[in-house]
C-alpha cells in the first residue's frame, strides 16, 4: 500500500527553487528524509503536510489528491505533523494543548480525553499533563509537539527534526515509538541526524539542492560509504559519499 506518492514535485519561492523535481513513494514504515541544511527537506515536508501547494508535479497522500478541498480535509483528518519550529500557546497545559489539536483534527469528541491521555503518556509527559507549556523545557515542548502529532493515531505522520532538543535517553525512547508507529502508518522523518535514520527507518531518501540524490534502505546507504565516505559511523560515511558524488 502506497500512502505517499510524489511525482516530479517542484516548489519555487520567487526565483529560488526549493524542491526541484522530486519523485518518491512510501508505504507503511518509517521513511527517513536526510540532507544538509537548505536541501529542501522542510519544504517537501510542508507540501506533504498540505501547508503549501506544490508549484508543479503530482502529490497523492493516502490515495487522495490533496489539491482538492474535500480530499484534502480527509487527508488532514488522518495526518499528524510536527513542524520544525513548534509554535504553542504558553497558557495552555500539556493536556489542553494536545486536546486542542485533537479537536481541530475533528476527532470524535467522546474519544478525545482517552486519546489525549494516551498521547501524553506515549511521550512520557503523563506527570506533566497539567503543567503550563510556558514552564516546560525545550525538549519537553518537543515531546508535546510529538504528542499533538500522534493524538489522532495518524495514517501519515510527518515529523520535521523531531529529535532536536531531546536528551539521549528520550531519543532512544522516541526511536522505539517511531518503530511502533511505523508498523501501522507511514512515518516521514526529516532530520540531519543520521543515527536516527539508522536506528528507526526502513527506507531513506537523501536530498541535496532540492533533489533526491539517494533513495533506498539504510543498509544500501551504508554500503555507498564503504570506499569513499568520511565520518565516524558507517551511515555517516554513506551519507557523505552520496553527497560528494551528487555534487561532483
Amino acid at each position: 500500500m502506497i500512502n505517499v506518492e510524489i511525482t516530479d514535485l517542484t516548489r519555487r519561492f520567487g526565483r529560488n527553487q526549493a524542491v526541484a523535481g522530486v519523485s518518491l513513494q512510501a508505504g507503511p514504515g518509517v521513511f527517513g528524509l536526510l540532507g544538509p541544511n537548505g536541501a529542501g527537506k522542510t519544504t517537501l515536508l510542508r507540501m506533504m503536510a498540505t501547508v503549501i501547494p506544490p508549484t508543479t508535479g503530482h502529490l497523492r497522500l493516502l490515495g487522495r489528491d490533496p489539491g482538492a478541498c474535500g480530499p484534502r480535509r480527509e487527508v488532514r483528518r488522518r495526518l499528524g505533523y510536527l513542524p520544525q519550529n513548534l509554535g504553542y500557546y504558553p497558557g495552555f497545559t500539556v493536556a489542553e494543548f494536545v486536546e486542542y489539536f485533537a479537536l481541530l483534527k475533528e476527532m470524535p469528541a467522546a474519544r478525545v480525553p482517552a486519546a489525549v491521555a494516551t498521547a501524553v503518556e506515549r511521550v512520557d509527559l503523563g506527570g506533566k499533563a497539567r503543567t503550563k507549556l510556558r514552564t516546560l523545557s525545550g525538549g519537553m515542548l518537543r515531546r508535546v509537539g510529538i504528542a499533538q502529532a500522534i493524538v489522532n493515531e495518524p495514517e501519515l505522520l510527518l515529523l520535521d527534526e523531531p529529535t532536536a532538543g531531546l536528551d539521549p535517553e528520550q531519543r532512544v525512547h522516541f526511536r522505539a515509538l517511531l518503530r511502533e508507529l511505523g508498523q501501522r502508518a507511514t512515518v516521514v522523518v526529516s532530520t540531519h541526524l543520521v543515527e536516527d535514520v539508522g536506528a528507526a527507518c526502513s527506507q531513506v531518501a537523501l536530498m541535496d539542492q532540492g533533489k533526491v540524490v539517494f533513495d533506498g534502505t539504510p543498509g544500501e546507504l551504508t554500503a555507498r560509504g564503504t570506499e569513499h565516505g568520511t565520518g565516524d559511523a558507517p551511515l555517516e560515511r554513506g551519507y557523505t559519499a552520496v553527497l560528494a558524488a551528487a555534487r561532483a
Partner: protein
Amino acid sequence: MTAASAPAALRPAAARRGAGAAVLGSGRLLRLELRHNAMLWLLPVAFALFWYNGYREIMALPPMWNLRAMTLQNRLLLDLVIPVTGAAVWMGSREGRRSIADLVEVTARPRWSRQLATWAATTAWAEVGCLACVAVVYVVTARQASWGGPLWWPAAVSAAGVPALTAIGFAAGTWFPGRFVTPLATVVVFFGLAFGTQAASGDHSYWQISPLTAGAFDIGAAPGVASFYPYLPDLSIAQVMFTSGLTVAILGALGLRVARMRWLAALITAVGLAAAGTAVALAGTGRLDPHGMITIPALHDAASNQPVRYTPACSRTPIPVCMHPAYAGFLPAVTAAIGPELTEFAGLPGAPDRLGQIAEVYHQEPGNGIAVTAHAASASEFVLPGQLPGQPGTNSADFAANLEETLGLRLARDVILGGSGRAATPLPSQAELAVIAGSVRFPPSVEARDMAPLYGQLLPQPGSPADLAGRRFAALPPTAKHAWLAQHLATLRAGHVSLEQLP
C-alpha cells in the same frame, strides 16, 4: 517515551461523524477557548473602566429608568471598547504571533470554524462583562426608581454592539497579526466610535446609527423623554440591525480566504453589508417626534404613540401638586420650592384647584438645536424644568430657583393679574408688581430684566418704590399674605391699591 498500545484507530467512524459529534466537538473547543481567552483577564479592567467613567455618572442621575437606561447606552460601549477590542485583536492575532499557523492550518477543521470558536469565546466573555454592567445598573435602579420598569432596548443595543466590536478587533488581528496591531486597532476603534456620536447633526443624520446614540442627539437622556410616552424602539432597532449586520459581514469576510467556503462567505458578507447599509439608510429617515424620541417611519408602530397610563403622585398641600409617578422623588423638592405660593394663593380667584405635571414638547430646529416647549392648556398644568438635580450641571438650589422662575411666577401672575391674558395689556400696576415680587422668592441675582423677555414686565425695577413695597410684602408669612390677598385681591386687580396701602 513508551510504545504503549494506542486506542484502535477509527478512520471510517471519524469520516462519518454525525452532527451531534460535531456539536460536541465544537462545544469542547469553545470551552477550551473560553478558558484561555484574553477577555476573561480583561474583565476586571472593563469593570473598573465602567465603574470610573459610566457607573458613577449613571448612579448620580435621578433614579428614573429612562435617564439611566439611555445614559447607560451612551456610556457602556465607550467604556468597554478598549478592553473588548484589545482582547479581540489579541486573540485574532494569536496564531500569527505564536507562529502556530502551520500547525493549525493542516488540521481538518476549517480555518473559519476555528476562528469563529476563538471569536465566540472572546465575545461571550465580553457579553458577560456588558450584561453584568447592565444588570448592576438595572438592579440598583429597580430598588431606587419610584415607577416604571427596565428599558430593554438601550441594553439590547449595547449588547448587540459588543459582537461588532469583537468582530472588528478579531478581524484586524487576524489580517494583520503583530504586536502593534492591538494598540493601533484599539485606538482607531475607540476614536471611530466616539467620533460617530459627534458627527450626528439633526434628527435625520445617518450618524444616529452609532450604538452610543440614545434618542435625539441634542437631548440625549432627558427626563421628559420616554416617561409620559413609551420608549420608541425605532432607532434602537436600526442600531441593532446595523451592529448585527456589521458583525455578520466581518465574520463572513473572515471566511473569504477559505477556498471551499468562499461563495458562502461572500454571501454572508453581502447579507451583513446589506443589513448594515439598510440600517444606516433607515436612520437617515429619522424624525424627532414631539415626545423627544426619534421615529423611523418604516419601523414605527403607531400604537406606541399612545401616552403611558399612570396614577399621579400628589402632594398634600393647599393646592395639591400632582406629578408623573416617575418624578415622585422630586415631589418634596417641588412642594418645598413653591410651598409658600401654594399656601398664599390657595382658594383665591384665579388659583388652580390642583397643579398637574404635563409632558414637554420637543421640536427639531436646524442643526442639532431642539426647542423644548410646554403646551399648557390651563393654569393648572405645568412642566418641570428640563434639568433635574443629579443631572450634570444641576443641583437642588438650581432646581428650586428654576421652579420659582417658572411655576412660582406663573402662579403669581395668574392669581394677582387674574389670568395669563392680562400679562401684557393693560400693564400691571406698581402695587401688583410689588405683590408679585413679594410673593415669588427669586434668588437675589434675578432681576426684572431677566424675567421681562419671558413674561413681560412682571417685576419692579430694583430700588424703585414698588421694589421696596415688594420686599415689605415678602417679609410677611404666607398665611398673612393669603389673608390680605383674600380681602384685597379684587381691589388690587382693579388698580385701587397703592403701594403705601400694601402691608
